[in-house]
């Protein structure tokens, strides 16, 4: 056994810290899910995407020919953790460009699609920004229930239907879309495909959905006779379900590294706040913070274990779900303990982060008001638990 990162990763961490110091405004502290909300925040995130691309970090684990550096999974983990700790925005290229669109294209995409899209994402420019449209009003956890259809007509697909909860659709140039291509398939998992849609296409309408704290994170997206070239099909027609299980694995797998970096930052901020406000001597508070430290270290080492398995060539089955649920649980406890620590000051509107009453730049209340969103997105806790039960513990399917 060896529980140390290598010198290469440590060197990378130092470089990222240096970068954060130079490129982020003094005292920068990122708040959860704020990136897509305002034009100002989005603009800044895009600038940072460009700079991360210049450094070669944005898509570091991709092969050189597609705009990556061929970095190891370990370097990738160190980068995710550091970027989240320092709150560097713009690491994702919208929802999924970096984390699952790119990797899925490398697995299933045609040479043409790879050549076109991978360098665009890797460039960190607005034309490489993605949204991911799976969910529909009647297809949430039961994702295979989608109805949005794509009908082949000569060398085009004609798309009709409605997607919902599509994050960053109001920022994205491209949509990673799950559709039904065979309306007569005997089972609902069959007949699903993945198609890439240019968000500028005629017939695409994006309507904002506003969160209870006033954030514009996600949208409804309507497809009304939208025509896309048939070459935009990713992989094989009607093979979408299989492909998407991989994409979802990439998505869930991207949570852990970032999660533990960000959670660690919030914990550090809370410890510092407690020290500065003479709260750290109170046993109850000390112990709560100590519990959080135990949880976050556990999270970190679990994330490392998942990477280790992958680095040995095995394909993790339940581990990304394990790491995702665990992150949700930690975020919830951190939010509750954090708001408890700030007391009355934690009632602040997270969108008024500059108000004079706001503590810790509003990151604690943003976490509290928004963590339910990350716990629901990419598979609810119950769905992830079902996966762990069925595939990790080999229990009979429960639903």
């Amino acid at each position, binding site marked *: 056994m060896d529980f140390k990162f290598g010198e290469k990763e440590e060197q990378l961490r130092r470089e990222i810290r240096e970068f954060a110091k130079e490129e982020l405004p003094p005292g920068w502290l990122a708040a959860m899910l704020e990136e897509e909300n305002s034009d100002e925040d989005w603009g800044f995130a895009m600038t940072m995407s460009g700079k991360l691309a210049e450094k070669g970090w944005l898509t570091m684990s991709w092969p050189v020919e597609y705009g990556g550096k061929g970095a190891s999974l370990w370097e990738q983990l160190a980068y995710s953790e550091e970027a989240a700790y320092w709150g560097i925005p713009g690491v994702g290229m919208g929802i999924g460009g970096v984390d699952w669109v790119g990797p899925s294209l490398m697995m299933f995409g045609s040479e043409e699609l790879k050549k076109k899209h991978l360098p665009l994402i890797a460039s960190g420019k607005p034309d490489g920004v993605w949204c991911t449209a799976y969910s529909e009003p009647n297809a*949430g*956890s039961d994702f295979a229930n989608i109805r949005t259809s794509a009908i082949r007509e000569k060398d085009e697909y004609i798309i009709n239907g409605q997607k919902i*909860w599509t994050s960053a659709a109001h920022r994205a140039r491209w949509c990673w879309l799950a559709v039904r291509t065979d309306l007569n398939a005997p089972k609902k998992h069959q007949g699903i495909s993945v198609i890439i849609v240019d968000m500028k296409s005629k017939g695409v309408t994006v309507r904002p959905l*506003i*969160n209870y704290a006033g954030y514009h994170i996600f949208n409804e997206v309507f497809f009304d006779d939208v025509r896309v070239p048939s070459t935009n099909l990713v992989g094989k027609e009607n093979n979408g379900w299989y492909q998407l299980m991989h994409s979802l694995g990439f998505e869930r797998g991207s949570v852990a590294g970032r999660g533990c970096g960000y959670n660690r930052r919030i914990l550090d901020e809370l410890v510092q706040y407690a020290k500065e406000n003479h709260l750290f001597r109170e046993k109850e508070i000390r112990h709560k913070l100590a519990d959080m430290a135990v949880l976050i270290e556990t999270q970190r080492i679990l994330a490392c274990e998942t990477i280790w398995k992958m680095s040995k060539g095995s394909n993790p089955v339940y581990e990304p779900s394990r790491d995702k649920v665990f992150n949700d649980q930690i975020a919830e406890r951190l939010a509750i303990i954090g708001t408890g620590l700030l*007391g009355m000051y934690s009632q602040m509107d997270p969108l008024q982060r500059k108000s004079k*009453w706001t503590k810790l730049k509003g990151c604690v209340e943003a976490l509290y008001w928004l963590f339910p969103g990350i716990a*629901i997105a990419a598979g609810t806790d*119950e769905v992830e638990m079902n996966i762990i039960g069925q595939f990790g513990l080999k229990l009979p399917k*429960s639903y």
Partner: protein
Amino acid sequence: MDFDFSEDQIMIKDAARKFLEKECPKDMVRKLKEDKLGYDPLMWQKMADLGWMGLILPEEYGGTGLAYMDLVVLMEEMGRNLLPAPFFPTVALCALPILEYGSAEQKEKILSEIANGEKVYTLALTEGSATYEASGIELCVYLEGDDYLLSGTKLFVPYAHAADYLLVVGRTSQKGNPEEGVTVFIVDAKSPGIDTEVIPTAAHDRQCEVRFDRVKVPRENVLGEVNKGWDIVEFILQRGAVLKCAEMLGGTEAVLEMTNNYAKERIQFDKPIGSFQAIQHKLAQMLIEVEGLRYLTYEAAWHINAGIPSKLLISMAKTKANEVYQRTCLDGVKIHGAVGFTEELDLSLYFIRTKSSEFSLGDGGFHRERIACELEQLQPLFIGNCL
């Protein structure tokens, strides 16, 4: 024992629900969230006409003369319907202590103005330290001739921007322990030197910063006795906390109901999500918690009503309310899935109030400490009894 509501209480409950469902539906709650004043003076007047503000004030002041327990029933309905109005500050935080500690003249003037809906009152208690401990009271008070001069800043004062009068808790003596040397003043909100600013809270529930710069208050506006004000604060903390619990209880009942209904309607995997055990058990746990909160709140309220000292029960009820309100809302949101994360859903209006309710009149830490202090002083039953 008897767990039934009285006839009066059933009447209050039904009337309140009918009135609030009609006058204060959720789109009204949403509208008032963005409104400058944060409540509807017309609705306020109707509430006064229904006798709500004077519900437990004696008839001589224009009240109905009902009991504390009846007010608890009313507050529960207000919580269930999320009524945005300065009712809690005016009645729970001000009318009750004035009724208990006010002079004959003060009661005569103030209580009738409250009962008929003419005046809005609020309590300016907490400061920058944001604590309900007496040590948090630093607002300076000097005597100059026949007037007191108040200087300092109060924080998280509910509806101060709309208040006609404030009960201001100030420090009149630095000697002794912090609980001695505190005095409560009745202050005209329009007095020169008062500056009010609404704090942007997530709930948009109109809590304010109120700054006092040598604000003149005549001697006769002291409530109760000089330097004995902490007794009044303790009185407010106890009576108010249970009313806050009742409001939170009403909220949890509504959230449980909505979520339970949704679990029956929402179909995924060809079944209502409520048929999945993971969801069923969560809802079952919610039921255990909500019913526990309900009777703990009623028990504490009944003791107050009967005049039995009940500091322990009160703190238990608020500790429970803080836990249950938050847990119920969080699980309610999660059971709804993504739609639970939107402003569209009524449930979010309850969730967004979790923190302001929790920190109103004492968070879990504050009340747990009070419970522990009581436990420390109690003699265990088995000691001294032969075993």
